[in-house]
């Protein structure tokens, strides 16, 4: 059964550094999403992406965040200058229509 994959599984970075989180959505899906979950808290929407452009973004998704679909398979989330409060689990999801299927997540630790 096709799955969403994410790399790396765990990323440790220093405050102020740039990180790129990578996702490979399920191949025939059209909608892509990034969510984050700070430890012990609810899952929060960051951004949705359709037809090679952002369709919706949350207040969290400020200028330090960007997304890209550089080729036909990858979907990336870039954080330009990481802050301590960016430490969280980042989930990628993809959807053929209304159901969203999540990847295993990338645990980002900012020190």
């Amino acid at each position, binding site marked *: 059964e096709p799955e969403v994959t994410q790399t790396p599984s765990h990323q440790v970075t220093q405050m102020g550094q740039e990180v790129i989180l990578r996702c490979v959505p399920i191949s025939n899906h059209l909608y892509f999403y990034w969510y984050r979950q700070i430890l012990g808290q609810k899952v929060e929407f960051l951004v949705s992406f359709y037809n090679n452009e952002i369709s919706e973004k949350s207040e969290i998704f400020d200028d330090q965040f960007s997304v890209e679909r550089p080729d036909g398979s990858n979907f990336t989330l870039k954080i330009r200058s990481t802050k301590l409060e960016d430490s969280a689990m980042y989930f990628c999801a993809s959807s053929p229509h*209304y159901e969203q299927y999540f990847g*295993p997540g990338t645990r980002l630790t900012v020190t």
Partner: protein
Amino acid sequence: AQTVTQSQPEMSVQEAETVTLSCTYDTSESDYYLFWYKQPPSRQMILVIRQEAYKQQNATENRFSVNFQKAAKSFSLKISDSQLGDAAMYFCAYRSAGKGGKLVFGAGTILRVKS
């Protein structure tokens, strides 16, 4: 904006017994989707069950079923014959019916299964 409320931070159930997790939501929309996701200790988000708001029939997936009360804006999850592997955090989520809609999650309910 839509909100999702899970009023039970934690629930316990004996193995083989039945447990119901509660979820309410607030929306002014008439067409939408509701979901339950399971998050085990691995933190993977696993889709358990889905419900389309326009369907009156409650969704069922094996041991998992929902009680969808549209007028009351309630969407509870019933787990029958609970198993140790059901122990996890369960999130209720709402999605508008439009294209590419985001999921709005509740705060989650931790389910513990006792042997």
